[in-house]
């Protein structure tokens, strides 16, 4: 995994390329400004987690050697692992390493943090992407059906079910699904994970239950959001009246006009969600035994494996920052009013 501060540089590069096409250099400046203010946030987050982890009782050396070890043995290992050096030095070393692309090595396994992340992140991403896919693919048609006849039967049912879905805890759903589909019906596996390389079908099979556990809440949330926006468009916007005046069928007014405008708002929310969702996968990964980043994090905390924790925290924080930025910027990029600006007339 190329470990230049890729997460930081890539958005800048991509944006710079589009700068020529972006009507608004204000947008570019906005992005740069936001990325710059993100830096202290990233520093703050990583420093904070460093502090927190170091204040915990025990350290990696102790964990590795176990309860039987003598203080001398522990101390020896600590020197070997570099844990005896002062706190700030260790942080600075880590920071320096990260900025030059070396995230360090796991204290427990010796593996490079980069390779650990490289192995775990895609797994979690696949799970989250799957969950998003399910939720969005269902949310759009459900919202459309509801908005078609507000307060009609489809609408009422959708509102009731979405309220119920929002009130279910993902882990509760996970356990119920496991009980029904794995234990009782035995059609889907309860735990484990198969990499896509070893059979895409199997890979999906193991991800279905966890993805649904996460996805149901998302589905309900997005459905309600989209429905509300669609209704707002249909009832309040002049261009809807124009469309009706053309003789366009109501369903088409909904899908070709209102939906277009409502999707922008939805995409913004999805981007915002991405940040918070990563944390939520921890419990789901735990229940289903999915070897993703959440699982890794829990283990690392248990082992007091600071480099791994820092690496994960850093990546999480970057994703949150980028996702929030994307949410703010996507809207302006997608909206043709801002994208194309006003040429001279």
């Amino acid at each position: 995994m190329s470990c230049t501060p890729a997460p930081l540089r890539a958005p800048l590069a991509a944006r710079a390329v589009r700068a020529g096409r972006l009507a608004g250099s204000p947008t570019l400046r906005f992005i740069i400004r936001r990325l710059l203010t993100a830096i202290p946030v990233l520093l703050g987050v990583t420093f904070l987690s460093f502090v927190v982890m170091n204040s915990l009782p025990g350290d990696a050396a102790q964990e590795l050697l176990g309860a039987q070890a003598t203080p001398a043995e522990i101390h020896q290992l600590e020197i070997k692992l570099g844990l005896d050096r002062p706190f700030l030095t260790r942080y600075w070393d880590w920071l320096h390493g990260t900025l030059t692309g070396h995230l360090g090595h796991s204290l427990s396994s010796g593996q490079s943090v980069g390779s650990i992340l490289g192995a775990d992140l895609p797994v979690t991403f696949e799970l989250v992407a799957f969950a998003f896919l399910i939720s969005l693919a269902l949310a759009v048609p459900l919202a459309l059906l509801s908005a078609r006849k507000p307060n009609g039967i489809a609408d009422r049912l959708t509102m009731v079910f979405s309220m119920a879905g929002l009130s279910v805890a993902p882990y509760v759903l996970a356990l119920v699904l496991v009980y029904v589909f794995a234990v009782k019906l035995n059609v889907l596996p309860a735990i484990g994970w198969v990499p896509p390389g070893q059979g895409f079908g199997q890979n999906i099979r193991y991800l279905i239950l966890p993805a649904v556990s996460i996805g149901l809440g998302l589905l309900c949330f997005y459905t309600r959001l989209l429905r509300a926006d669609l209704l707002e468009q249909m009832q309040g916007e002049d261009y809807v009246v124009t469309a009706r005046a053309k003789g366009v069928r109501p369903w088409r007014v909904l899908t070709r006009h209102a939906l277009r405008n409502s999707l922008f708002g939805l995409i913004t929310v999805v981007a915002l969600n991405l940040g918070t969702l990563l944390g939520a996968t921890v419990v789901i990964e735990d229940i289903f035994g999915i070897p993703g980043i959440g699982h890794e994090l829990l283990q690392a905390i248990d082992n007091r494996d600071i480099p791994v924790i820092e690496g994960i925290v850093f990546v999480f924080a970057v994703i949150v920052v980028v996702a929030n930025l994307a949410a703010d910027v996507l809207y302006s990029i997608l909206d043709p009013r801002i994208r194309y600006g006003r040429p001279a007339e």
Partner: protein
Amino acid sequence: MADLPSDLVVAGVAPSLDETAAAKVAGRWRGSLGVTIPAALVLLIIALCFIWPIIGPVPPPTGGNILNASLPAFSPGHFLGTDPVGNDEWSRILYGGRASLEIAFAVQAIGIILGGLLGSVAAYLGGWRDATIMRLLDVVIAFPAFVLAVAIAQGLGPSELHTIWALCFFSVPAFARISRAATLRVREQTFMTAARLSGTRFPRMLLGHIAPNILPQLITFALLGIGIVMILEGALSFVGLGVPPPAPSWGNMIAQGQSTLSADPRYVLLPSAALFITVVCFNLLGDGLRARWSSQ
């Protein structure tokens, strides 16, 4: 209500008319469900969890007799049966509810007060003070709270109090954001300028002018968030924080029940059902209040 909607509003673009009419038709049905029924249910749940164990015939949730382990539902003296170590399940549900609700209420209360204050002050002061406060909040938000929660669990040991602290990391920034947005909106209104010009000082401003205008939104947010906090408390139980067993909370009951899921799912299903019903009621209440308050 003085004016009549003008021609154009009445004719084509009539969101108020159309929607109000539709809402009125539905509202007459939903109005009664809107606030009263959920409020009543919520009060019932609170009474069951907090008051009934004190005055009613409810055995203690811990210290059960191992000889009574895993009794089925409707056994004499244990209408929901007992858990694998002999504690009465009904009692665990009630006491568990009390713990979960306590935590949720505390977290939201701290959130509203601390977060609400923070966000409101930030919005009111504006400028670099606003920016700094929001940056700090961003750090907290970007921080993987699970790391913090697990760290607290391992460093300080799990307890109800520590769980509340950990959950405040979620709620305070969230309330701060909402409060800031709401205050910004209120700040722009003319009565605020008038108050400022007449020399009202900040604390008075806050209590007298800002608070009454942002409180409805904060309260609605708080109610809708209770469900989320309760669910989060459960999640924390999975990773080692939460209320430490043997004392029950719905969260730790679900987490513990995982191990006996295939054998006896009711240890997961019962607290899950209780949690679900409670969250639904709070959500309905929050929704109803939001509908009632935004239509004014």
